[in-house]
């Protein structure tokens, strides 16, 4: 899942990282790089990375549950709660919003969902290991792993942690303490050679492997197939997290695929570089995961999506290792084999190492925002920006409901000029006619060298003015991006009070954007009504990426399930209808979340029977035993 919470903490960390400390780190890093090479040359195959479970280096340790929630989003020390006065706050210190009180959230929450802080639906307090089914271990395979000195475990906590992504139904079940099929074993390879060994052994003993990167999937991709009777091994790549080399002449970096987004950016920053790939989940999602799902980053307008960033990929398949022979920037040698890997969702093998483009860290960054009288005008503006190809690093358009949502998250202390106050000034004095129930907001992020940014900014604001847009300040822009970072934490808060929700996305040609947004939102509302949801759901959307020929649209859907007998089933039916509506309105199956098992049923109509047959034959060739048996995609 690439749609969630960017690490604001890491970003402010970057800002203070100008001291000599950075140089020391860089020296140490180089040493590590060298030792990494040495380690790989050892005949025994033992990896340096294997001992490197170093919490100072990695945001996520091997035992993830020590730092991350076992039944919710993100870090254990960070969660939303309503304090005794009914003021919302985010605990911990990691995020910019941490510790600030948000007085507007309670009213918004109760008013939007008809929820009540008196009515709670708490999660089970802790995992009860006795409900976890005993592991179905393949003794010979485990023995062989131990012989190869690759760490593994069948501890219930680890197995449960590796049994899910972050789909609503997965988290909902965990909160209720319901545990289904979980992997029988978790293994932590430390380097490419370890993965080669694991895959060889798996083929030899016919066990099932499920690659696991950041665990942020929202497509049921990590769910263990119920029909799988073999021993299931979760291959956790988190210990393969080193930058193996940086090529400053060609501006590329060769990186182990288990590295997570925030670590990658932090480490590159030490050398003065970045990839610029910032999916909203970059705090937790991994490089390998991005490749396997065709991820998209917030700043793709400057840096490109993952398929534009990748120069070389190494993947271990049951047939052997697949990679190209050189690093030419573009190759005409038959269909690009990278495109068999990009989006293969763990069905073909494990991505172990990736060469990525890197860029000098940008000298200048500026936020911005524009308020439009209506969503229609906002979309027209974005379309024009795409047409003139002057898009800033990120440009997003929130609909009216999200504007109100963002407004509810205003901090108590007026550090920034409050949005509404500013607005009130606008339309009471000069710009009458902005209907607060119709207006919408675009948030902007500019990045690059200062001159370029300032010119670009001018151009974008000029276009916005043509569509009735008014500049609404940098702070509003920045807060707009904060909303993205914390939305998944907010979902956990909702679940404490009978409110469940999910997000899903699509891509659609420009001329259908408005129709699709309206139809899908309305379909959600009507389906909820028809199925007996008492209070109208939150059904809202935003345009999050723009392209020459279309846009990416992101929907949020949440409702109050108090009094409903089977909220999960209802939720799934509504989500299913919403996806049908997307497809009927000319939208795609997914822009960047991927297919997993959740959207598999639509694959044939999406890529045609012939297309599906092509993918099947690749799978058949690479993995006839179905070792990579997560049953995603096909």
């Amino acid at each position, binding site marked *: 899942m690439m749609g969630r919470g960017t690490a604001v903490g890491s970003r402010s960390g970057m800002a203070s990282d100008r001291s000599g400390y950075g140089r020391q780190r860089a020296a140490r890093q180089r040493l590590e790089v060298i030792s990494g090479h040495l380690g790989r040359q050892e005949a025994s195959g033992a990896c340096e990375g294997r001992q490197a479970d170093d919490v100072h280096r990695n945001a996520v340790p091997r035992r993830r549950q020590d730092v991350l929630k076992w039944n919710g989003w993100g870090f254990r020390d960070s969660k939303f709660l309503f304090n005794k006065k009914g003021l919302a706050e985010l605990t911990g210190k990691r995020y910019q919003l941490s510790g600030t009180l948000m007085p507007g959230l309670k009213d918004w929450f109760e008013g939007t969902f008809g929820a009540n802080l008196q009515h709670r639906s708490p999660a089970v307090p802790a995992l009860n290991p006795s409900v976890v089914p005993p592991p179905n271990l393949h003794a010979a395979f485990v023995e062989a792993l131990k012989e190869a000195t690759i760490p593994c475990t069948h501890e219930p906590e680890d197995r449960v942690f590796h049994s899910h992504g972050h789909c609503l139904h997965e988290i909902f079940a965990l909160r209720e303490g319901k545990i289904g099929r979980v992997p029988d074993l978790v293994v932590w390879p430390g380097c490419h050679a370890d993965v080669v060994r694991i895959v060889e052994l798996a083929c030899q003993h016919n066990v099932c492997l499920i690659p696991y990167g950041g665990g942020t999937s929202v497509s049921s991709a990590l769910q263990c197939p119920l029909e799988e009777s073999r021993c299931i091994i979760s291959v956790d790549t988190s210990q393969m997290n080193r930058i193996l080399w940086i090529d400053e002449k060609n501006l590329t970096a060769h990186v182990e695929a288990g590295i997570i987004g925030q670590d990658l950016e932090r480490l590159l920053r030490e050398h003065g570089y970045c990839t610029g790939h910032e999916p909203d989940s970059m705090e937790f999602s991994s490089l390998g995961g991005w490749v396997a799902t065709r991820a998209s980053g917030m700043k793709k307008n400057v840096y490109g999506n993952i398929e534009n960033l990748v120069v070389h990929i190494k993947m271990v398949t049951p047939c052997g290792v697949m990679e190209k022979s050189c690093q030419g920037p573009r190759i005409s040698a038959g269909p690009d084999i990278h495109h068999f890997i990009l989006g293969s969702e763990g069905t073909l093998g494990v991505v172990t190492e990736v060469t990525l483009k890197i860029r000098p860290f940008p000298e200048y960054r500026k936020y911005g925002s524009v308020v439009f009288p209506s969503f229609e005008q906002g979309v027209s503006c974005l379309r024009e920006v795409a047409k003139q190809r002057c898009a800033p690093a990120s440009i997003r358009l929130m609909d009216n409901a999200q504007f109100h949502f963002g407004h509810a998250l205003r901090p108590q202390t007026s550090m920034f000029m409050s949005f509404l106050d500013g607005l009130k000034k606008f339309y009471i004095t000069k710009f009458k006619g902005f209907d607060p129930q*119709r207006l919408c907001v675009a948030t902007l992020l500019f990045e690059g060298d200062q001159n370029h940014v300032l010119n670009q900014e001018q151009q974008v604001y000029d276009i916005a003015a043509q569509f009735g847009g008014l500049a609404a300040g940098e702070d509003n822009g920045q807060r707009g991006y904060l909303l993205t970072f914390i939305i998944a934490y907010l979902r956990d808060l909702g679940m404490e009070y009978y409110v469940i929700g999910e997000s899903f996305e699509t891509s659609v040609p420009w*001329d*259908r954007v408005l*129709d*699709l947004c*309206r*139809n899908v939102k*309305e*379909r959600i509302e009507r389906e909820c009504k028809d199925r007996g949801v008492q209070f109208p759901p939150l059904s809202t959307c935003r345009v999050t990426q723009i392209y020459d020929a279309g846009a990416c649209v992101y929907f949020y859907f949440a409702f109050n399930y108090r009094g409903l007998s089977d909220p999960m089933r209802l939720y799934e039916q509504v989500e299913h209808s919403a996806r049908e509506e997307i*497809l*009927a*309105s*000319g939208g795609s199956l997914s822009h960047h979340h991927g297919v997993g098992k959740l959207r598999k049923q639509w694959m044939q*109509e999406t890529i045609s029977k012939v297309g599906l047959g092509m993918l099947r034959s690749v799978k058949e060739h690479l993995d006839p035993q179905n070792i990579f048996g997560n049953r995603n995609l096909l």
Partner: protein
Amino acid sequence: MDSSAQYLMLSRREDFRDILEERRTSSDLSHALKSFTRMSSRASPPCSVSTLNKTVLESQHLHYIMQEVSKDTGEPLEAIREEAAGILEEMSQNLQLGYIRFLGFILSKVFKRLFRKINVNEEGLQRLQQAMQESPVVLMPNHRSYVDFLVLSYLLFTYDLSIPVIAAGIPLMGMQLIGEILRRSGAFFIRRSIGTDKLYWAVLSEYVKTILRKDFAPVEFYVEGLRSRTLKSLPPKLGMMHMVLEPFFKGEVYDISLVPISISYDRVVEESLLAYEILGVPKPKETTMGLLKARKVMDEDYGNMHVCFGHPLSVRDLAKGKVNRKQYNLIPRDLPMKPSESIHAFANTTAHLVLRLQQDNMVLSPWSLMATILMQNLGGINLKLLTKQTVWLKWLVLDFGALVDWPVQVADSEVMSSGLSLHHSVVRCEGDQVLLAEQKPQRGAAPEEAVFRRAVAVLMCASYRNQALHVLASPAMLSVALSLAAASSRADIYNLYAFLREMFYNEFIFIPDRTGQDFEEACSLLQKCGTVQIINQNIMVTDKGLSVTSFLTAAVEPFIDAYQVIFRYICSRSVQEFTEKQFISGIRTFTLNLILTGEVKSYDVLSSETQKNALASLVRLNALTKKKREEQTYFSPNKAAIGRTADILAGKIAPQARTYSRL
């Protein structure tokens, strides 16, 4: 069960309220000046007429078509654009509330003068209001009289609902002053026989679609295309139907509600013209003078009028599982595109469904029941017998699910005499005998003249029978099938039923692909009233049921006879092909002779509507081939096939077996 079946099963019990009652007790002026707030919670703010027209002219779709036309004709694009602007100007409505008020005032006066009551089902209006808040609405009334034209606007104004824009024929526009008043009351004008004028079609369809997309106003149009001269539903025209459905298929609106509306009259204002029109005497041109001359119609009593607003049909519901909207994904939506098979079938079925629902909600007057009996007793009937049979028929049609406006707490004899006196132009009483009011031919006139006068009287009466015919049609087809069938097996009877349904498809309007269900329904109706027994896949008429089946058979006999005469005529001709015009004049002479010799008793065969329907049926059954050549349509008969059809209709041979599909 698909959703069309669900709509057919919705309750039909409606309570009506007379809106004239209040008009008779309170000021028409204050009614016309009442505060009017368009109740619509749809998101987009209302747009002006000029913005609407501008959007149409600047649309991508029109742009494509203009380029095509410019390429085809070699004329510069600018000239084509001007032509399009001209078409739009001629077409477009200019809805203004002031004119609605003005018209409201006039109509209050006129309606009170013409009608005793205008009964409306208020529940239907509430449903309509609900529908208007949820999606763009298309009002689909039947068309029996010019009075239909503004009555809906008048009602919606009275009930504070959005005033519709109405598709009207261009002749109405030609009337000085009136045309402009209608335009400002929301009428937009469509040329008759647009044919292959690409540009005109494009402007019209873009206009209609833009109104729906913007939810500018409800769109009102007659799916029958024309005013029905026979007072029977006409087969639907699909052009407008496609236009109003397309915004949904292309995802431009979330849903569209189609509201079938049934307007029925005790007595139709232009009744005296109807018979002349269907006998082939052209109707008077619609002129302002014509209307003023029609002032004498104002002094007559036209009884009650009923307007029944049906349940709104959600196009989204209807299309579920029938239309795959993804078919539009790969082509720009503005590009002109021929509707696919599935779209065409859906539009056709939906149009038929609307017609059927219009029929179901039609309120029958006692008079149209009397006319049905009279048509079986053209030589005259004793009043007591007529009363007895009419009351019997009332119970029968109530059993069949019809709505009947039979006054309660009034003696049957009074209901009868009230009906007879209201229709003094059609019937007269001579002592106890009730006879058709027929103008005596002048002394020394040709015998054909007498037949013609008789035909006028009969067809006028037939029109009122036709108002009730849809209730009887399907059970009557079953009754005929029962009488024609050699054996009582269900399969044989079904075959015949299906054949007859196909034969009279345009005459009685059946929904396509529902033969099985319609057959089942007809069986269960006749079973329910004890007319038939169904035992072991055999359908048998009970002893006491014989009176019902023979009555039903007699009700449709004039049509069967008419078709037989037409078949005979076509087979008797030696030419290889003929045009519709040649056919219509030929069949008239042929029939006149047969009527003069007393060989043919049916006057329906003289109706040009019946003649055209019969031709269409033969084309459907592949017994006639239709060819277009030099702007003319030619028919060439397959005489063997026509002969076979005639033999089946006469019960001489059995129709080809069909697979019997139950539901």
